[in-house]
């Protein structure tokens, strides 16, 4: 594991040191290679054995003796962390199902440990409570929720067992109430608790540690939780209708023969996109639709049902405006003549 550089080989770092003294000091220094260690510390159950050795000279030659061996065992520390790996709020919509929120549970203790998971969606300080559908373990380890592939978590039956420093991705699947509005936020919380025990740091469970020692609650309390947020992005629609009249005498009185131009302005607000917006308007009594007067975004449309987005069927006009992002408007106009 350790390697030595030739004691007289000049280390890289000494190349630019001009002082002869520094050079000598470095040249005689031995070089060892650093070894990685567990973040969680020495594994639970490890024996720490210490023996000292002494050598001395006697008239009959050198002698080597050893001390007694002292053995102590490393206890299991129970520690866990939970974080969300979601990059930010997860977008949802009113009535949406299958919201996926992602968490990472890490065993920061020094022994193999199982963790009990609990999802909580009734958390204060938010606008709505998502409904918890299920908790799913990232069984195939790809970090992505694969419905039907990743295993549904059942408390007490498949509590994830993690080695020291090992992590498991956990998905919390929820649905969103239909009553939410754009901008609402809802919180989902995942709690992980060491199955061996939890509580105040220092709490000891005799004989429960891996490797035969005790299990001792570490600084995390052997439980941890994290929040992830859902944000509702919902588009809403306002439709405003207006009319202008031009009479045959150059005025704007509603007399027979006067032309009424109707304008329908659909304004999409909120966030996201409103899909499949269709604007329809029946032709009022006592007026006659003026053939070929239908427009959408200032472009004239034919009255027939054809390739363009609008038509007049004898009683009403209809324009399929399609998918409209929030912040935009769609304007439809048509003309009628007062009978």
């Amino acid at each position, binding site marked *: *594991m*350790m*390697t*030595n*550089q030739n*004691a007289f080989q000049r*280390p*890289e*770092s000494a190349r630019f040191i001009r002082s002869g003294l520094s050079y000598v*000091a*470095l040249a*005689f*220094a*031995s*070089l*060892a*290679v*650093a070894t*990685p*260690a*567990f973040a*969680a*510390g*020495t594994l639970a159950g*490890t024996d*720490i*054995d*210490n*023996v*000292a*050795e*002494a*050598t*001395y*000279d*006697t*008239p009959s030659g*050198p*002698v080597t*003796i*050893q*001390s*007694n*061996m*002292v053995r*102590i*065992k*490393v*206890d299991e*520390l129970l520690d866990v962390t939970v974080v969300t790996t979601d990059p930010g709020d997860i977008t949802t919509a009113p009535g949406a199902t299958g919201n996926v929120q992602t968490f990472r549970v890490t065993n920061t203790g*020094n022994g193999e440990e199982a963790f009990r998971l609990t999802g909580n969606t009734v958390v204060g300080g938010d606008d709505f409570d998502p409904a918890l559908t299920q908790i799913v373990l990232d069984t195939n380890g790809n970090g992505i929720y694969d419905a039907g592939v990743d295993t549904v978590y059942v408390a007490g039956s498949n509590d994830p067992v993690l080695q020291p420093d090992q992590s498991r991705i956990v998905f919390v699947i929820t649905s969103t109430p239909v009553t939410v509005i754009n901008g609402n936020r809802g919180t989902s919380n995942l709690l992980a608790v060491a199955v061996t025990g939890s509580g105040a740091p220092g709490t000891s469970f005799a004989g429960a540690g891996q490797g035969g*020692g*005790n299990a*001792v609650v570490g600084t995390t309390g052997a439980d941890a939780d994290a929040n992830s947020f859902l944000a509702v992005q919902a588009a809403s629609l306002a439709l405003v209708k207006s009319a202008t009249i031009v009479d045959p005498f150059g005025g704007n009185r509603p007399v027979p023969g006067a032309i009424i131009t109707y304008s329908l302005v659909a304004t999409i607000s909120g966030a996201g996109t409103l899909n499949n917006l269709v604007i329809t308007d029946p032709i009022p009594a006592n007026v006659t639709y003026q053939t070929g007067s239908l427009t959408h975004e200032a472009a004239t449309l034919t009255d027939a049902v054809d390739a363009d987005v609008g038509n007049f069927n004898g009683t009403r006009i209809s324009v399929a405006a399609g998918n409209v992002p929030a912040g935009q408007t769609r304007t439809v106009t048509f003309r009628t003549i007062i009978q």
Partner: protein
Amino acid sequence: VIKRHFTKFAAVALALIGVSAQAATPLQLSSDVFVEKQVTRKDGSRTVVLEKPNLVLPGDNLVFVVKYRNTGTATASNFVVTNPLPSAVAFNGTSDGLEIVSIDGGANWGILGAMRVKQADGTVRAAEHRDVTHIKWNLNQPLTAGAEGKLIFRGVVK
């Protein structure tokens, strides 16, 4: 047949010599380890006591005590005590500061400050306490009959 018996006899004789050499050792060496525990006194103040542990946790401070004693009648010279550090223990200094250390399993020895460690990325850094693998004391004065002493070093459970 005679040859086999002779071999057996020689082995027994050698074993006996080994035992008598052990018994004649005029020096005794003993090792002890204590763990520092924080205790709260009745008045609420905190103090650190040393306990003899059976079980420890990562981060616990350990105190190792190596006692030596010349129980013979002759003076021992060139007395050297070596303590390999258990792999789960990070060195945390000695009480006398007279030790030399090894950071490579006992192959090279010196003062910690003069040693260098090559890191995974190829850069070189000064050796630190955590790199130490062995501690050694060269006691320069002869150990006369009846003389005794102790060497103390500290470690942290990794």
